[in-house]
């Protein structure tokens, strides 16, 4: 699932705390039996987005606290397990409690109730570690903990003053010995206080852990909300029945790439039904991108994310499978084809026992076209009977049977090739960019199997394929009466 661009999206989440990162790692697609949880997560996301838009300053305050949060799960664990904490662990717990209290107060002012985000009151923890009530972000075993300790330290200080002014080395040594004894006494008393503090803190171990989770979730949800706002994402709508309807869907990775070049992505509309769906069209027509746009948005929806589309209505799928060949691979041939068959068999197991989404990119393109076409046609016919939504991309002609939900990329349908080919410019890069700029990536539903526009030869001509070859091909074309689909547009 990695090559559909999921990581590109996840990498853009601005997560601030180590706990938030953990929560992100733990994100998985929800299964159908947890649909109500998924819906709740999406609703909470919606609330968070409006909250974020309404009170950005509060979120800034929270973010500032998030930046200070360190991973202290080790210290908390020791705290819960009756370990004796050292100064550094006590320091970390104290700071965590101070920052945690700040976060709690800010969160409560937002008046949200996000599921599982529940901050416990850590004031008692701070009080334990701040007997002088100064609320400084520092820690030491304070005098205030024990009078005995205070006295021992005063005695030690007196000796240190004498030591500082003492020049006689013998006397210095004596003083140093006395001081050592007091140091021992001080350390003994400090040790007792640490044991006592650790015991007192143990009861708050669970509160600390709950706050760890709450901070992590709040961090993750805030990051998701920010991304959704920034990228104009919408809440996916899970419905009964078997469908996937996407209005103005985009692929976030391609969108970002195009934006860097100053271009905008062409959003895609599509309405998929149970059984077989097909998308056909010319090469370079963005079919593969469309397939991945569907896959990525469906997956994001199942993971509780807002999607890159104006609307996405879908069922909760038991599985989402993408069967995409490495079309660029020169190897091709039986080995790739064999791999496809093996993978497909695995998917069939899922298809037979539950309902899901299967996306298949150019199946059987690695074997001879005659058999390839037959196989694709058969597959498409076979999958019609299942509850799974299967989406085929194919450049084969005449494989889309009746009853299959058929879309085609508009492509270069409306382009006047003759005009273009006559244009002087011979630079192939320029020509490539020209094709890309003229390509209409939108999908249109196909009512019946019309003749597939044969743009292959035109594209080849435009890209500068030797005119002699073009002439030979044209001659063959004219001879052909019924044979469809010369694979001239297929890149080696």
């Amino acid at each position, binding site marked *: 699932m990695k090559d559909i661009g999921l990581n590109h999206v996840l990498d853009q989440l601005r997560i601030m705390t180590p706990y938030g990162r953990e929560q992100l790692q733990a994100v998985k697609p929800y299964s159908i039996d947890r649909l109500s949880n998924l819906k709740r997560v999406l609703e909470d996301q919606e609330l968070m987005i409006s909250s974020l838009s309404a009170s950005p300053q509060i979120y800034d305050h929270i973010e500032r606290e998030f930046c200070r949060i*360190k991973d202290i799960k080790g210290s908390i664990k020791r705290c819960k397990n009756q370990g004796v904490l*050292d*100064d*550094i662990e006590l*320091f*970390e717990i104290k700071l965590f409690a101070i920052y945690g209290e700040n976060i709690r107060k800010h969160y409560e002012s937002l008046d949200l109730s996000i599921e599982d985000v529940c901050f416990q009151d850590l004031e008692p923890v701070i009080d334990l570690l701040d007997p002088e009530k100064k609320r400084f972000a*520092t*820690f*030491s075993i304070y005098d205030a903990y024990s009078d005995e300790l205070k006295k021992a*330290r005063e005695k*030690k*200080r007196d000796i*240190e003053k004498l*030591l*500082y002014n003492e020049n006689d080395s013998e006397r210095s040594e004596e003083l140093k010995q006395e001081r050592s004894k007091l*140091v021992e006494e*001080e*350390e003994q008393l400090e040790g007792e206080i640490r044991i006592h503090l650790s015991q007192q803190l143990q009861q708050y171990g669970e509160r600390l852990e709950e706050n760890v989770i709450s901070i992590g979730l709040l961090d993750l949800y805030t990051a998701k909300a920010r991304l959704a706002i920034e990228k104009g994402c919408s809440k996916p709508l899970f419905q009964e029945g078997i469908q996937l309807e996407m209005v103005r869907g985009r692929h976030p990775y391609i969108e970002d790439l195009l934006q860097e070049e100053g271009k905008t992505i062409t959003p895609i509309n599509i309405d998929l039904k149970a059984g077989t769906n097909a998308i056909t069209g010319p090469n370079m027509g963005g079919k593969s991108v469309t397939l991945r746009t569907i896959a990525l948005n469906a997956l994001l929806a199942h993971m509780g994310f807002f999607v890159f589309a104006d609307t996405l209505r879908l069922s909760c799928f038991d599985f989402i499978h993408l069967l995409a060949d490495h079309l660029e691979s020169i190897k091709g041939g039986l080995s790739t084809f064999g791999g496809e068959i093996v993978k497909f068999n695995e998917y069939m197991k899922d298809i037979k026992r539950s309902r899901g989404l299967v996306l298949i990119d150019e199946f059987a393109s690695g074997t001879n076209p005659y058999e390839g076409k037959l196989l694709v046609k058969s597959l498409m016919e076979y999958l019609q009977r299942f509850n799974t939504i299967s989406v085929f991309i194919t450049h084969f002609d005449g494989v889309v049977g009746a009853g299959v939900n058929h879309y085609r990329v508009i492509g270069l349908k409306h382009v006047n090739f003759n005009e273009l080919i006559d244009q002087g410019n011979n630079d192939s890069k320029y020509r490539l960019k020209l094709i890309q700029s003229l390509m209409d990536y939108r999908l249109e539903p196909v009512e019946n199997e019309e003749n597939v526009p044969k743009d292959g030869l035109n594209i080849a001509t435009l890209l500068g394929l030797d005119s002699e070859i073009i002439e030979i091909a044209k001659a063959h074309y004219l001879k052909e009466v019924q044979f469809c689909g010369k694979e001239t547009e297929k890149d080696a």
Partner: protein
Amino acid sequence: MKELLDKIFQLNSLAIVGMEKNVGKTTTMNYIIENAWGKHLLGLTSIGIDGEKEDQVTGTDKPMVYVEKGTLIATAKSAYLSSDLTKGVLATTGLQTPMGEVVIFEALSDGFVELMGPSINKYLKLVIQKLKVLGSRLVIVDGALSRRTMASPAIADGVILATGAAVSRDMQEVVVETAHRIDLLQIDYEKNQEKVELVKSGLGQGKVCFIQGDELQVTDEVTAIGAESTIKTGLEAGAEGVIIGGVVGDRLIEYLVSQRVALEGKVIYVEDGTKLFLKEENYRRLQLKGAKVLGLNPINIQLVTVNPYSPEGYFFDSSELCQLLHERIQLPVFDVISKIGVGVEG
């Protein structure tokens, strides 16, 4: 000495390094601390040891310094725990060392602290910065001139070099070796801004690089050791300079000389003088052949301290030693035991 000390306390950071063990580096440190007592708030840390356990077992200096209440210290967690003063934790840094995370604390009483700081330049810089932000007037870094450390005293504004009888039984030798070490530490640094950027970029590659005009050519060699023939080839092919990120030792120089590589006008760039481990004769040979060695980061030696006593029992006449040194190196020299110096008047 007062004016010199005033000047030192104006610096942001000061590194104290020693020629050897037992040259009085810790005594020097304590001396500076004593002179700050009651006057300047100090921050203390050290360049950590980045090596096998043996170094720690054979006792490469783990200084215990006596500090004034209020001093800020950055040290590894285990060293924090074994420091015997009343202390308060101010910050954790997230920087790991073999002895634990570096923590920053305040001395709440006078007492002894153990210094074990970070061993990487980047981290050391962060720690020094943090100590300054927390209010230190001067940050003192207990340094090291070892091949093993990746962090360099050059990161500090000023350096004090400690030397002494422990260096050699022969007083002349002490002078010669100390002077040589100072020559290496105080190599010229590149002043041309464009070249500086190029060298920085080269050092950032983590590999030996050549400079040709304003272009950088990166090789596959990570250190100079083993890269001798690559360096020879590059220089002979016309490279004006070679950038070496790690230690530059005698082996390379002896190789280049024995192979009669034309070195006139060529430059060897190193991070700073602490990376040069060259015998005096090899350094001289380089210079005779017209080659230059330039550092990226200058090292400013403020003072050289001397311990005229050796742990083996012999000692030198302090004023004679200080005088000889001063004449040779033209820097202030100070005996930290007798508290007498030469050339230390501001």
